[in-house]
């Protein structure tokens, strides 16, 4: 049983409301933090080893320490709740069921960073959640945990919720800031980084919902104790949103010491593959991270079990590994067509490209068209090489990481499933009526059999 820090009270009826949250010990971490100095809080966050939970995995304490603090210039904390990465729905769960955990995390973080006005930028489609957050904000304010002179400390904080309007790119921190300023979500060139020139050119920290929620247990149990949970540089707990062809889709909190196999097949988590089918592939960290076939997912190339943590998932680099990313865990069974799946992701990134950089604007659409052609049985063998070439020319050549996010799924699909692409080209009639199936990926996964 994994240790739970964020979701430990998620099952309690009424935990969405202040009274229940408070009864469960809510806001005691905030009370503790407000008696500390901002530097002491920062040291706790650094000691925790917390890595940004939005996908990039950058150390949160280090990010906070970069914040420029010129006297007389307001600073801001902006919570990135623009959860738009396919496969990722964990922040939605936190905001929907534990809004006060986020508010408390924001209070501690804002105090540490010196932000008196903080914002939650939430994707527009989550249109019922701002009501939940705003109700929680009002409750916290009524109880003296927000507003002027919080708990008599002299610290003031207002939190506002802003809805986006349907643009994946606004999950990129500088695009988010542009959107929050009432503009198109076009990413900015960095440097300057938001820590120096962010919202309205003021020093700003942008952090994911889960990262800010994790600040509460870090202060509660201390950074050193938090760092003891997990393994290596994968400290603390991580929320994983599991979906696809599994028996128990949902949001799970893990302590990053379990194996991928345990996560997929144990009843505590995903409960195995739906309808007794066999595992074909998985995207473990949101759609932008490399897809891996079953054999490489469960075992590294050295035959070691692969674990649900940053280091183990990345073992072998992109050639044989993948990434923890946002924790959006998409499982594909033997019936899924990799070409079709890659095509839908290419369509997604083409749709969501802001159009600012030519390689992304033109390349994503080009990749989608080629994949659609192959999927529809009209592809040629050279199209596969062309796809490879296009993704190489997008990766690393754009202002923001959306270019990489669009390129990696295509690269990994070709790298690991080239035979399936070739089968589509060679069997134009068949590929319209049947899937390539498991092929040779069936053999290297005997460990799965005992649970099948």
């Amino acid at each position: 049983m994994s240790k739970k820090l964020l979701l430990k009270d998620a099952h309690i009826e009424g935990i969405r409301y202040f009274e229940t949250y408070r009864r469960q010990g809510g806001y005691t971490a905030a009370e503790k933090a407000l008696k500390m100095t901002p530097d002491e809080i920062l040291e706790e966050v650094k000691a925790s080893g917390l890595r940004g939970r939005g996908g990039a995995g950058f150390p949160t304490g280090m990010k906070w320490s970069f914040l420029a603090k010129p006297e007389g210039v307001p600073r801001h904390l902006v919570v990135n709740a623009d959860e738009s990465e396919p496969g990722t729905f964990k922040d939605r769960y936190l905001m929907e069921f534990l809004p006060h955990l986020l508010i408390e995390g924001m209070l501690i973080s804002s105090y540490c960073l010196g932000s008196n006005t903080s914002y939650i930028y939430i994707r527009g489609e989550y249109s019922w959640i701002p009501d939940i957050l705003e109700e929680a904000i009002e409750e916290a304010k009524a109880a003296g945990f927000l507003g002027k002179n919080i708990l008599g400390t002299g610290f003031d904080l207002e939190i506002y919720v802003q809805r986006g309007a349907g643009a994946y790119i606004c999950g990129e921190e500088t695009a988010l800031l542009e959107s929050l300023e009432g503009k198109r979500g076009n990413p900015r060139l960095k440097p300057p980084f938001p820590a120096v020139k962010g919202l309205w050119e003021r020093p700003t920290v942008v952090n994911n919902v889960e990262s800010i929620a994790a600040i509460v247990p870090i202060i509660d149990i201390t950074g050193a104790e938090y760092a003891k949970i997990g393994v290596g540089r994968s400290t603390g707990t991580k929320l994983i949103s599991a979906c696809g062809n599994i028996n128990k889709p949902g949001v799970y909190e893990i302590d990053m010491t379990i194996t991928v196999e345990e996560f997929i097949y144990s009843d505590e988590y995903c409960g195995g593959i739906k309808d007794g089918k066999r595992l074909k592939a998985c995207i473990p960290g949101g759609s932008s991270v490399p897809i891996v076939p079953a054999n490489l997912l469960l075992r590294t190339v050295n035959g070691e079990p692969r674990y649900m943590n940053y280091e183990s998932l990345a073992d072998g680099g992109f050639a044989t590994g993948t990434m923890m990313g946002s924790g959006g865990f998409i499982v594909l069974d033997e019936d899924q067509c990799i070409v079709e799946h890659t095509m839908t992701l290419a369509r997604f990134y083409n749709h969501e490209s802001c159009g600012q950089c030519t390689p992304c604007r033109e390349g994503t659409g080009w990749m989608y068209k080629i994949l659609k052609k192959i999927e529809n049985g009209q592809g040629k063998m050279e199209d596969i090489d062309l796809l490879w070439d296009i993704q190489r020319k997008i990766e690393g050549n754009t202002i923001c990481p959306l270019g990489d996010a669009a390129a990696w799924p295509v690269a990994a699909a070709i790298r690991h499933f080239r035979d399936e692409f070739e089968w589509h080209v060679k069997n134009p009639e068949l590929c319209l009526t049947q899937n390539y199936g498991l092929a040779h990926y069936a053999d290297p996964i005997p460990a799965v059999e005992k649970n099948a």
Partner: protein
Amino acid sequence: MSETIAFKPESLAQVHKIIARYPEGRQKSALIPVLHLAQKEFGGWLDVPVMDYVAGLLSIKPIEVYEVATFYTMFNMKPVGKYVLEVCRTGPCMVSGSEKILNHIRTKLNIKDGETTEDGMFTLKPAECLGACGYAPMMQLGKFFHENLTIEKVDEILELCRQGQVALD
């Protein structure tokens, strides 16, 4: 600014409340929230006079409104039906059968993607990832998500829409 276009007093009060969230002179930050309000109040889409009205309210140029309104997929640039069926079709939803759901709606309502039924009741909009991956397939109707869809469940929702029994807000 069109003289015939104006927010209801309660919506206007909401606009001023939103503007107050931002520092002096940064009222443009209120643009997206105000466009959401405008779309809701003025027929479900953003006509040019409506966008001009919003520009006037926020003391910004109309072009600043147009460029934002056309960038974000949640803003409709042409009239839509009373019920906009936004069916997610990305990754996990595709894996869970979203194409079957989309095909069923296309056939049943005899409309293509982006079209509105002749009676003005339904518009179909395929969507790219709505964050309901664990509860796929799904569609958004107004403010709410309808998840774990089946053909039967879709039929039931469409029928309830016709009876005016599906909440949008």
